[in-house]
């Protein structure tokens, strides 16, 4: 028996992604001179579909790009917006960079902590919300701003934010 590994990672069978995403990935890998250039978009799309980057998702992406799992992890761990654990249904990202900070971003974040009962990078027990303190999201002109999943909410006060959170909560229960 050979005890040195020839191929580090086993080939996953089938795909864990939706047929649409799988087709999209099939195309993506053909677009660049080097296959691995498709890595970051693939990680993002996979996260959008599954909610986070599971071990199975990482293994499949590694296989599609002929990379090792370690290679994929090296890249994804670099980016704070890529997750390896599930987030809540609504990921509340509060900006506390300079413009938002000056206009009460820090207070907004602390308000969220109190309202949701969770801290940075945590998820509520019901899985509805998760909270994150993030760097600039490019909405300085309308500071303070909060991003929930891909939607922006700007020029906020603790009161307007409460209304927004309530709206999401009711959406979650539908």
């Amino acid at each position, binding site marked *: *028996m*050979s*005890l040195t*590994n020839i191929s580090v990672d086993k080939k996953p069978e089938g795909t864990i992604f939706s047929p649409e995403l799988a087709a999209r990935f099939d195309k993506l890998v053909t677009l660049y001179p080097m296959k691995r250039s498709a890595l970051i978009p693939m990680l993002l799309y996979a996260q959008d579909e599954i909610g986070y980057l599971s071990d199975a998702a990482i293994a499949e992406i590694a296989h599609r790009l002929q990379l090792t799992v370690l290679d994929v*992890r090296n890249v994804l*761990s*670099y980016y704070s917006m890529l997750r390896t654990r599930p987030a809540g249904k609504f990921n509340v990202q509060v900006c506390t960079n300079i413009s938002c900070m000056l206009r009460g971003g820090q207070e907004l974040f602390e308000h969220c902590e109190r309202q949701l009962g969770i801290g940075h990078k945590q998820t509520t027990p019901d899985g509805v919300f998760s909270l994150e303190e993030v760097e600039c999201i490019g909405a300085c002109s309308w500071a303070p701003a909060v991003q929930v999943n891909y939607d922006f909410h700007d020029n906020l006060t603790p009161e307007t934010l409460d209304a927004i959170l309530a709206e999401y909560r009711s959406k979650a229960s539908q």
Partner: protein
Amino acid sequence: MADVTLTVDGKRITAPAGTLLIEACRKAGIEIPAFCYYPGLSLQAACRMCLVRIEKMPKLQTACTTPVAEGMIVATETDEIKQARKSMLELVLANHPLDCPVCDAGGECELQDMTFKYGAGGSKFIDIKNHRDEQQWSPVVFFDRPRCILCYRCVRVCNEGMDVAALGIQQRNASSVIAPNDKTELDCEQCGMCIDICPVGALTSDTYRYKTRPWEMTHIGTICTHCGDGCKTTLGLRRSEDGMQIVRGDNRDKSGLNGDFLCVKGRYAFDFSDSPERLTLPLVRQEDGHFETVSWDVAIKAVARGFREIRDTRGGSSIGVIGSTRITNEENYLLQKFARGTLGTGHIDHHRTTDYVSFIRALGGQKGRFASISDTASAPAVLLIGNDPTEQHPLLAWNLRTNVRQNRTRLYIVNHREIKLTRQAKAFVQIGSDSYAAFASFLSGGDSTAFGESATSLRDALRQEPNLVVIFGSELRGADVETLVKFGLSLPDTKFACLGDYVNSRGAADMGLYPDLLPGYVPVAASGAMQTEYGERFPAQPGMDLASMFEAAGRGQIAGMYIVGDDPVERLGIAPETLRDTFVVVQDMFLTGTAKLADVVLPTASLYEKSGTVTNTYGDLQGVKKAADRAGVRTDLELIVRIADAMGHDVRKLVPFGKGVRADMGQSRGAQSGEADRHAIWLAAHNLEPKLSPFDPNALLDEIQRVVAGYDFDRIDLLAGSSPQVQPASAELVQIAPPSSRPDSIQPSGDTLFTSGTLGHYSEKLNEVQAFQEKKALVAAD
């Protein structure tokens, strides 16, 4: 490329265009500090220690990534640069624990040296340092994140040098961390290159961790006792209760033929020498069948009495002698001389792991056709047939990978399995495990289409190679070796290498541990001068090979056996009854299966505890230096001499020591009457002095150099620490009998990266690593 001229620190230097500034400076004697730059690996420019000022360039530049240019004016040591380096070190030390008093690397740490030279004695950082606990990644590799300076050397050597890619880098900036590939463990070849290349104490080895301080050890560079590649390993030694103990094996001294490389065995599998199972007292079997420990005098007398009695009553030919693939050339030479000259037997053999005889025979009369290990790192094209160097010849695998990576060598592989090196191959042809012979004849011509399209195009490509190196494993034997060599010789300037398994497999073959061949592959029938030198007991007929000896012992025809450093009983599964009526003497480090059946067991020194020379499978001869010491044991050389002495044999005739003792002034009668002392004349002609002690291996090396074909290398090469190549296939070689007349007695060891024959059983660390790898393989198979 054309040379360019540049000015560094006011000194004009020239370097070939394309050279990196850091290299050009180093060659000109201007040291530029660097952590991340490592010759032969890809560029990183992470550590910023090599910053220099280049005129007309904005900001300081990294000398490790800047190629030299004509007229470039460079300053390497200005106040600005010193300040930059000092600041860089301050950053590097920001999270460094400064646990130097207990760190393994303390005293031989590049970070210590750099801080000492460039300062940063104080720090502006008052924050709490990031801390992570130490992690164990495998039985041999530990990782201490806080000490890591993120130079990425380990990641690159694992990716590029080893082609294993077991290390990665995760997170970013100050949180960056080196990560293993299998969650919290390493799934790799356990070579320990990452530990060796780490400039600080972030990666440490289990065998050495927190054991001692570097300055408390003596460091001896000697040759690894395991596979046939013959890497140099630097042993760190410390005084222990019963001698000098090996506490570390590494490759700090990069002067060996292995350059940067060392594998798991050379690095960790030295612990057999400290095994509690090690024999340190001679054992003699008593009437009641039990072993009794006795003094050396008693044991040697028992051996001498036994052998003399058998020789004088039943004749020398009733004694069989088995040599070793792990003892020195001098010892093996002496052993066969003792067998032929003192015991008077032709029954001498060793554990053959490949067919060197057919190889040497096929190259008979050719000069400059042996590929040395260094050729494998530089040849423009290599054909590898059989073997799996990753498992069996790790240095060869490293050289081939490096050669492909750096010189774009064309590597052609023919194997029955898709071995790991096929990743580097330009062409790979998979054949059946029983088709090697057919493939050899396919190469030499024939329109056979049995191997398909790819094999034909491989053959066509090979025919265009002017400087091919052909390397083959023990899959090819006998006439098939000849067929392959003939094909190689039909191309211009082809060189060859034949892969055998143990550190001195080739040496044992060269030294004539064959029943039918004398040292230098001289057939017994054509012994010539050797016969007269060895004395009147010299057997005129070829003897029996190893397997036949045991068969004969079973029939009662072999009354005595002298087995040195081998365990044929275990290896061949020989039944104990076979040796019931045979007087068996075993020289070994351990009570092996063979030793258990012996009448006398003589505990011997390991290759790390003696001096001499060994020849690797490529014919590179290297000096072995005595490093460790174990009270009680004796070298095989000393034991053979003492047994001969106790048998009443004139030791001066066995080992040429002392002055002018062999000259015959005409007093005697017989073949040598009136002849001058050949050895004294040879010594004088080579400016060598007679050696004073019969236990001096150099005395035997003198004789080996005088009589063994191909061993006429320049002694100064060896003394200077290089590895002269021996070329035994001299033009004067008498034709060796065709292989068809020889029983096929080759038994490849089947060793992997984590086993090493009998010796491997006694290395606890190697066993531990093997168990770890087996567990990983099982998990992977699920």
